[in-house]
């Protein structure tokens, strides 16, 4: 204690948004155990805490990838061209709910949902319209699709080939992360075990046929958005990654044959240093997992490459212009954390999908960070800061304890079946909401600095006509196709699903024969049954 009287602090306890308590001050004692070579390494050196590339953004900026998709394939295609004209460098497709659940637009369960939260896709004809005029050998495409990821990947390949591109030249990502669906996002078709089998088939197909394709994007985003803390997001995401690597090895592949094409997707929330620490810990942990646990020999297998999206859940409906500032803070943390690509949310997304004006501000936010802020001039500028290093260690310790627990339960597939991560997240989310109600956590404009009446902002409306015309289109494609070929393709697919054969090849043939997404997923449902979640509150 010093002789001076310490000024009284504003609060009794300071903590991150994830409720990690923060000490009054950090100093040399907090990093005394840190060994530079062992724990940090220069950027581009194992364990990559400081970044996977030696020069980071001095060589290449992150990919500015804005997630988009709504209404019909024509509507979304127009938005893609708009984004490409304004300097976006990769596409990212959002699909509507029926597509995510493997239903065609004319299915009874699709009522009212067609084209609402993303683009409606029923057959390869929709995918051809979606990417019309896009140079698919140069622009990379990320598709947020999971349960029917194998169908969408097949559709992308067939659409590209029919447009004259070669499959080997296609670059992009399918999300394909079913474990996080069962944990958090909750769009599924069949139960966890058969879902893992489809993923194995995709990994093998991707490794053979699509050298530039990231078959799985191991995603913490939805886990965080569902209410997880930062360390839970980190832990559950890496534990999911471990399960996929095991699945690839069990499919008979050498770990270094497929691990370099695994990529990650994280959330970036408001708590600036906690997020930066999370990204740094993630790289270090994954490098060690791949090298020590799985014996990977290729440095590229040790790299944790990741996409980031700013936290949708942090946006407020109240005083929506303030969201521009939240997104800027989050985007800055993602860049200081060394992200490979970034989506910045738009200010109006608590109301609806964003308008073009709102999307442009979000993209400009990234461009200002890239070209005006100067933070890109040197890799990991916060490396060595007492607080950042101490917090990075804490993220690793907390997440490591969770991973150990999941290993003890028998791995992530089993943990999901037991509802373990689901319960942890529900608990954390309820605790956070209570802290907000008590004003222990302040949300500007929501529980403090409230204004009574606000002028409504203009939002994007989806024309209900989209549903009608999409239904007409899928029925027309079914009516005009060679029914014999479609039927044979479906039979071949069913035989492959029932056997141990790789399902990707018959899916590609079915897609080429204009079999619809819903028809293909009906085969999955017939063979494996539909997943029903035990309702946990």
């Amino acid at each position, binding site marked *: 204690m010093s002789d001076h009287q310490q000024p009284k602090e504003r609060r009794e306890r300071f903590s991150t948004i994830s409720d990690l308590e923060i000490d009054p001050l950090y100093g040399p004692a907090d990093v005394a155990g840190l060994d530079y070579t062992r724990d940090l390494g220069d950027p581009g050196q194992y364990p990559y805490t400081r970044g996977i590339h030696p020069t980071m953004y001095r060589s290449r900026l992150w990919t500015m990838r804005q997630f988009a998709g709504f209404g019909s394939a024509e509507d979304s295609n127009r938005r893609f061209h708009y984004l490409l004209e304004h300097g976006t460098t990769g596409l990212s497709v959002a699909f509507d709910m029926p597509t995510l659940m493997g239903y065609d637009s004319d299915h009874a*369960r699709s009522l009212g949902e067609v084209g609402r939260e993303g683009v409606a896709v029923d057959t390869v004809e929709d995918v051809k319209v979606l990417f019309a005029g896009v140079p698919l050998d140069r622009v990379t495409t990320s598709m947020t699709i999971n349960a029917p990821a194998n169908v969408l990947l097949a559709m992308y390949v067939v659409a590209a080939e029919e447009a004259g591109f070669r499959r080997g030249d296609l670059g992009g990502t399918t999300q394909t992360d079913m474990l996080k669906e069962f944990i958090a996002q909750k769009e599924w078709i069949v139960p966890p075990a058969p879902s893992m089998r489809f993923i194995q088939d995709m990994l093998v197909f991707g490794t053979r046929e699509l050298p530039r394709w990231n078959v799985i994007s191991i995603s913490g985003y939805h886990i965080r958005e569902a209410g997880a803390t930062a360390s839970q997001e980190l832990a559950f995401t890496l534990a999911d990654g471990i399960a996929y690597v095991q699945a690839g090895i069990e499919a008979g592949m050498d770990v270094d044959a497929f691990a370099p094409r695994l990529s990650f997707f994280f959330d970036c929330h408001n708590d600036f240093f906690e997020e930066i620490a999370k990204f740094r810990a993630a790289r270090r942990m994954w490098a060690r997992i791949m090298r020590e646990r799985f014996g990977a020999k290729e440095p590229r297998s040790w790299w944790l490459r990741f996409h980031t999206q700013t936290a949708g859940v942090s946006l407020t409906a109240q005083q929506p212009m303030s969201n521009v500032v939240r997104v800027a803070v989050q985007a800055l943390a993602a860049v200081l954390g060394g992200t490979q690509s970034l989506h910045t949310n738009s200010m109006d997304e608590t109301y609806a999908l964003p308008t073009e004006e709102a999307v442009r501000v979000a993209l400009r936010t990234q461009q200002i960070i890239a070209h005006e802020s100067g933070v890109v001039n040197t890799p990991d500028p916060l490396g060595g800061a007492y607080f950042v290093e101490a917090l990075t260690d804490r993220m690793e310790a907390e997440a490591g304890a969770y991973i150990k627990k999941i290993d003890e339960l028998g791995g992530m597939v089993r943990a999901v079946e037991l509802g373990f991560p689901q319960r942890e997240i529900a608990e954390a989310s309820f605790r956070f909401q209570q802290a907000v109600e008590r004003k222990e956590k302040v949300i500007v404009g929501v529980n403090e600095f409230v204004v009574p009446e606000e002028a409504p902002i203009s939002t994007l409306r989806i024309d209900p006509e989209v549903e009608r015309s999409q239904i007409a289109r899928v029925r027309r494609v079914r009516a005009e196709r060679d029914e014999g070929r479609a039927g044979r393709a479906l039979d071949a697919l069913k035989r492959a699903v029932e056997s141990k054969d790789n399902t990707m090849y018959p899916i590609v043939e079915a897609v080429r024969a204009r079999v619809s997404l819903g028809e293909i997923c009906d085969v999955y449902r017939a063979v494996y049954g539909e997943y029903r979640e035990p309702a946990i*509150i």
Partner: protein
Amino acid sequence: MDGARIRIVMAKPGLDGHDRGAKVVARALRDAGFEVIYTGLHQTPEMVVTAAVQEDADAVGLSILSGAHMTLFPRVVQLLREKGAGDVVVFGGGIIPEEDVAPLKAAGVAEVFTPGTSLETIVRWVRDHVRPRGVRA
């Protein structure tokens, strides 16, 4: 407490899987002394109404984040009326633009809670507006 007898079915109609809000609200209502039955995800309006009738619910809370509320909320109200359960109070929340609130209320949805609503507000509203069926609110 008088809330103890009130039964609420919390449901997620439609295909979206965003159940954070539904679960937090379900838990807050339960902690406030109501009986809460959570249906789980991906319910059709028919499934929600069947659950409400079977559980003898006094109220149904709906949560949608996919934009399908204009189709699905009124459908639940209509089906409840068809089953002779038109006095079950229907309330909802989610990503719902302000301009949709008035048409939803006109269609028979008693209250719509938009993003940022506090749990306390929802609990208080249920306490003030939901009575055991057959008892006038």
